[in-house]
């Protein structure tokens, strides 16, 4: 059913495919895959990030992600979480393409365990290799506008700067840089990481980003399904607010009621 709360025709286009939802959700840290599926549903998400891991050979009967989130219904966006070199990231995504058959991927090459901050040099190396190999690369990156530009120049199909550290819930720590990245980008900009609550998602969208990627803020909420719904509305509110154009800020009051005709 089309979401009538979103302006018609306002679509997010990534690598040539149109999406009406601007909220991408992760599938990590949920109590179970059933809750995960219910949250993705409540978020109105069309794209979900997924990880690639070794099959547990001893426990083949365990629940599988694909049994709960149908890859025909949700666009699976395989990630490279846990990869600390370009080689590992490229290897992981080649396996992901073989497992799923899709070439749209989320590249992240991390620098250290404590911050999970992206290693931009390795990220750029991996991005080039993947694009040469036919992948559509959405790239997790720092909020450095210079590296964002370089990643776009080598052909990444979406730039995904962090709002703050992965899983931190600290919100949008550097709105000025996010705005600089938005202004220069010719591909979608999606804030990935750091969103802690619904208002953070709205703040990101009001900066003019094209979408928001949320995992922990939903999965670690007391009521994940309700938070998923809140995020959906927050992203729509931020997008509409950005498109509507906010009023100028003033230092003094400006009455909303007419001054004429006062008794």
């Amino acid at each position, binding site marked *: 059913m089309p979401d009538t709360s979103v302006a018609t025709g306002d679509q997010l286009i990534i690598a040539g495919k149109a999406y009406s939802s601007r909220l991408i959700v*992760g*599938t*990590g*840290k*949920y109590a179970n*895959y059933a809750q*995960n599926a219910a949250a993705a549903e409540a978020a109105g998400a069309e794209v979900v*990030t*997924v*990880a*690639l*891991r*070794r*099959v547990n*050979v001893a426990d*083949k009967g365990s629940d*599988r*992600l*694909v049994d709960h989130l149908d890859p025909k219904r949700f666009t*699976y966006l*395989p*990630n490279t*979480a846990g990869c600390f070199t370009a080689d590992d990231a490229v*290897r992981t995504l*080649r*396996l*992901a393409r*073989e*497992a*799923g058959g899709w070439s749209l991927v989320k590249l992240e090459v991390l620098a250290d365990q404590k911050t999970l901050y992206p290693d931009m040099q390795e990220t750029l190396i991996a991005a080039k290799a993947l694009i040469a190999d036919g992948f559509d690369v959405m790239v997790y990156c720092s909020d450095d506008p210079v590296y964002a530009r370089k990643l776009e120049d080598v052909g990444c199909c979406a730039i995904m700067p962090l709002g703050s550290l*992965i*899983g931190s819930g600290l919100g949008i720590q550097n709105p000025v840089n996010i705005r600089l990245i938005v202004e220069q980008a010719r591909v979608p900009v999606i804030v990935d990481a750091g969103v802690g609550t619904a208002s953070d998602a709205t703040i990101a969208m009001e900066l003019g980003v094209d979408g928001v*990627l949320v*995992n*922990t803020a939903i999965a670690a909420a007391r009521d994940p399904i309700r938070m998923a719904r809140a995020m959906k509305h927050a992203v729509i509110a931020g997008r509409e607010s950005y498109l509507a154009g906010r009023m100028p800020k003033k230092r003094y009051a400006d009455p909303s009621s007419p001054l004429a005709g006062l008794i």
Partner: protein
Amino acid sequence: MNVFLNGEPASAPDVVTVAAFLESLGMPLKGVAVERNREIVPKSMYGSVRLTEGDRIEIVQFVGGG
């Protein structure tokens, strides 16, 4: 013969294709990818690629992640 399966020592029949090896493990073929000595084995090759002694086999699938 001895191989490594997902990093752990494992035994496999002396003459076995990737397809037969997966079947012997009771592994679903859908949604998994197989790597042999760091080279992807495409699904179309499962029936023809044979394991050899000491092969390092990785079988991966999608799980939840952010």
